């Protein structure tokens, strides 16, 4: 059994738990004046967490480059679209409303 791999899993797990709790605690205790900024920050944090799950738990770190690029691009695109929705929605959908 590869001890280094096992420790990597533990580090990824603890990092994910810490990021989740810290982000939750931060947004529960501070008043955010702009909801669009809050959504953008949270989307980036969620994107980072999903990337950690994909990279270490889904073993993307041992996958071919094409798979790595494909999955990480999907995660980045989704996080950016969510983060940018306050700015994208009026441009894309307003003419049809």
């Amino acid at each position, binding site marked *: *059994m*590869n001890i280094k*791999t*096992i420790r990597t*899993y*533990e580090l*990824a*797990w603890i990092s*994910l*738990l810490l990021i*989740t*709790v810290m982000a*939750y605690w931060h*947004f*529960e205790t501070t008043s955010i004046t702009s*909801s*669009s900024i*809050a*959504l953008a920050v*949270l*989307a980036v*944090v*969620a994107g980072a*967490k*999903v990337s950690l*799950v*994909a990279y*270490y*738990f*889904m*073993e993307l770190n041992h996958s071919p480059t094409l798979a790595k690029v494909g999955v990480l691009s*999907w*995660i980045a695109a*989704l996080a950016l*679209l*969510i983060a940018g*929705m*306050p700015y994208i*929605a009026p441009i894309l*959908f307003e003419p049809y409303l």
Partner: protein
Amino acid sequence: MFIAIDAAMFSIICLVMSYYRVTSPQAFGEGQALLSSSTGLLNTLILLSSSYFFAKAVSLARAGAIQQAKRLFQATLMCGVSFVLVKCFEYYEVIQQGGLYSTSTFFSYYYSFTGLHLFHVVLGMVGITVCMRLYCQDQSLTPTGMVFIESAGIYWHLVDMIWIFLFLLIYS
């Protein structure tokens, strides 16, 4: 292919939810006020832990430590059961406060999207049970068994990844 279709479907769901959140902030806020964000946080921590257990179980199964892997599959399954129980409790609480499917668009989305995700969690739990019952009985794994376990792992991690985005869009 199934996992790619699932990922695409939930990506569209996340974009629909973020669009609704941005374009109807008042209705979204009113609906969200009935939800308990701490329950959502608890479910996030449960699913993240389950992903860790599953990843470690796959690694141990690959190394031939079948019995240790089986214990971690059981831990993953327990996390899945906990997620379902917490979710049922959350639905009960929301219904008690008057948040029904037909109450508002927010609750239509909330029940549809979280319900669809819950169905995927249950499907993943069936996969974990198959991993334990069919492939972890002997001292060594067949190549078919290893492929099934790895595929079930990828599926389970995808369910976790989708929840991270749903938690952001619905509870945060």
